[in-house]
């Protein structure tokens, strides 16, 4: 792809600086975006990408610097200014209201609030025209709550196109898509770019950045540290720029499986709203092995994770732990049976924000280890927590501060410590590195590999196919609650796994079995 430096500048950021108390989120960030250009904004979590976009959209006011859109200065702190000037954004966490229809979501905020009518007919026909032109298939009258993740993203893009966006900002758009869906998204974008749309593509997936962008900007600790034309750089260089140093990912060798520790036989669970339950699932977790579970979010991962966590019980089928069929399944019995659980959402499920580190560290074991006949033994709990902090390198002022004040990485280390301390035989790691910086990611991966090497069975659930392929000894794909056969490490290409993620192959499987 060629650079388009001679083209018209549509967006110019000049010396943007933003501080939150002592933390500098953006420092002197300046760059230009040209018509028909795709720039990738690359950076770790916390590098300042989100803050920068929030400034552009008037949610925050910059402490210094200015934004120019199509040659006009953008008034700071005015949320509508950027939208009205033709900037659209697709957020990583979709900003859709489930109780509204597709068309209602799309026109939300388009008309003045003093308007008297929504003109549904006109709106719907315009949406149909747009979705045809850009191959974004979706029913305008459908309730958003009933749509799949892929469809929701299409609604988000339509929202921007409906407003005649000239600049489209995409925040981690492929995180929730299968590789095939991501391809389709890129195709749509190519078409839109050809009509003069400019794109800012926020991502940390280097191969996508290399594939779609013309130019790459790297943010680190709030500063713009590098700018590269995409065809004059490579993935290795970008990775190093992003982190600031060469960081070697832990090399994880494959291992031979041991005895089966946990197995599910024809297990089904009920659907939960739009989230599918498990459909006659068979799965065995073997000692000394990392089993990776790939799949697009919302395909039954939550049900499987809840099941192994003890939050739900199978509606049918059998669950065996070390050869014993399980009865009376609950979170407490899961913990008692030695299942270590690293939950998907460490803020909502894993920790209690206003509890201090000690109170969080003993959350699962206070009854068995830190109390006698209903009386708490706080001295012991505190000593235990101090040990954890040491052993697992949790950076914090001490065991008495509220966990809300820790960074995501340190919070995750405390959770790791809490569950790994007792050398569990089975480990359920659900999205264990989501939102962490590379240092913390590597730490978590090393700990999981270490646990495997001492003989634990690890189930790694992740939407990041790269992570799954890097760590897993055997990979299953989950789609609409059904599980693919296990694929040995290195036996599948990403595209093949993507086919399974999109739901292909399961029917053939069923016919074979029949």
């Amino acid at each position: 792809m060629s650079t388009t430096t001679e083209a018209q500048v549509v967006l110019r950021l000049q010396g943007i600086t933003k501080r939150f108390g002592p933390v500098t989120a953006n420092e002197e960030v300046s760059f230009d975006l040209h018509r028909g250009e795709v720039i990738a904004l690359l950076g770790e979590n916390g590098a300042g990408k989100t803050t920068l976009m929030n400034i552009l959209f008037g949610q925050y006011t910059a402490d210094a610097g200015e934004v120019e859109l199509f040659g006009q200065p953008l008034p700071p702190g005015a949320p509508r200014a950027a939208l009205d000037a033709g900037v659209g954004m697709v957020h990583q966490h979709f900003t859709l209201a489930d109780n509204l229809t597709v068309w209602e979501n799309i026109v939300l905020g388009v008309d003045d609030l003093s308007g008297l009518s929504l003109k549904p007919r006109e709106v719907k026909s315009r949406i149909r025209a747009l979705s045809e032109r850009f191959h974004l298939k979706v029913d305008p009258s459908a309730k958003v709550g009933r749509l799949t993740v892929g469809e929701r993203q299409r609604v988000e893009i339509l929202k921007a196109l409906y407003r005649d966006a000239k600049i489209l900002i995409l925040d981690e758009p492929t995180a929730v898509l299968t590789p095939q869906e991501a391809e389709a998204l890129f195709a749509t974008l190519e078409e839109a770019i050809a009509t003069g749309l400019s794109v800012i593509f926020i991502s940390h997936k280097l191969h996508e950045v290399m594939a779609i962008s013309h130019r790459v900007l790297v943010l680190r600790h709030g500063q713009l540290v590098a700018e590269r034309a995409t065809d004059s750089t490579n993935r290795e260089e970008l990775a190093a720029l992003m982190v600031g140093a060469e960081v070697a990912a832990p090399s994880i060798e494959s291992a031979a499986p041991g005895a089966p520790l946990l197995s599910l036989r024809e297990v089904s669970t009920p659907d939960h709203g739009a989230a599918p339950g498990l459909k006659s699932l068979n799965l065995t977790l073997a000692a000394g092995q990392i089993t990776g579970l790939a799949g697009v979010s919302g395909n039954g991962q939550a049900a499987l994770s809840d099941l192994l966590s003890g939050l739900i019980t199978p509606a049918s089928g059998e669950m065996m732990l070390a050869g014993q069929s399980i009865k009376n399944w609950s979170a407490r019995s899961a913990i008692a049976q030695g299942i270590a659980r690293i939950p998907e959402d460490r803020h909502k499920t894993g920790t209690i924000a206003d509890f201090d580190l000690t109170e969080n560290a003993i959350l699962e074991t206070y009854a068995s280890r830190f109390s006698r006949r209903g009386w708490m033994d706080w001295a012991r709990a505190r000593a235990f927590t101090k040990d954890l902090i040491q052993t697992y390198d949790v950076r914090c002022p001490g065991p008495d501060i509220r966990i809300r004040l820790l960074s995501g990485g340190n919070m995750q280390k405390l959770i790791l410590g809490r569950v790994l301390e007792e050398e569990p035989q089975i480990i359920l790691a659900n999205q264990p590195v989501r939102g962490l910086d590379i240092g913390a990611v590597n730490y978590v991966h090393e700990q999981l590999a270490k646990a495997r090497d001492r003989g634990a069975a690890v189930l790694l659930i992740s939407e990041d196919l790269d992570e799954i392929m890097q760590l897993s000894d055997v990979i299953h794909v989950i789609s609409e609650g059904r599980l693919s056969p296990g694929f040995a490490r290195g036996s599948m290409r990403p595209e093949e796994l993507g086919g399974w993620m999109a739901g292909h192959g399961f029917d053939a499987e069923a016919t074979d079995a029949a």
Partner: protein
Amino acid sequence: MRLEPIEAPSPARRIVPPALAMAATFLVAAALALIAGGNPFAVFGLILTGAFGSKFALLETLNSATPLIFTGLAIAVAFRAKLWNIGAEAQLYAGAVLTVILGTGALGLPSYLMLPLCGLAAMLAGALLLLGPALLKTRLGVDEVVTTLLFNFIFLLFVSYLLEGPLKDPMGMGWPKSARLTSEARLPRIVEGLRLHWGFALALVAALLVWVINTRTTLGYEMRAVGQNAEAAGFAGIPVTRVILKTALLSGGLAGLAGFSEVSGLKGALTLDLSPGFGYTGIVVAMLALLHPLGVVLAALFVAAIFVGADSMSRAVGVPSYIADIMLASALLFMVLAILLTKFRVRRD
């Protein structure tokens, strides 16, 4: 504007907003007193002397604080677990009803058996009354705020029926009033000749016990975990439903004790005006105490002082005693805001 959590609040940060909240409360009251034609300084002076100015006044304040300590504890316990018990009023009456049923001569027990029996029965009655809404919450997800509120109306009608029917005092000359408790069922006075009764001491013990439960027992830890984040608590294996039900029993029981203490210690019989809203005022007490059981004692004394003082002030000058209710309601609203400002900074973006 945006709220930003403060990592380590300075001592000034912790003290100034609540102090301002109290100042604002008194300012509101002063303005209202002026409107009613009273001199604010005279009004506050009269409230102060009315509450603490004499031995009689002081004992009156302590007596008035007693039911508020119980209901304040009931609500503090429940709110800490995010169980929104707004039904302490009904639970108080449930305790009073049981005390009257057992204590008006049906049982010929000596005092040392009679009093614990009445107290326990009152606790049980209050506890069971809250168990219903708590079960509706845990089983069906019905919001307990509305159910406990509605139960207040239902139970008061029930008491009205009892006082005109089965529990009616035959000597009551048509008033809806129960028979008087026998002397065995009466809480004695702490010092003979002074009006202060042992219910006050019982309230202090209850506060101490709740404090111990909160800080030293697994139940206290569980209740707080469930209140702060029920999802995380459930994930960690804490039996959330059971903890909510236990909280309901404890909370309802404490409110029931308020009814026992009022009937057995102070009034000697049950009437429909046994409680002038102690159940609701308990919410203010608990919030002013930041849900801390020992704070509840102080807050109850403060609230009682304002009520008792305002009553006596109102008789002296023409300012209506409702000024006390206004002060408490505004103290509550100002205080929740102030507490927020001790933990968060308001920032312009």
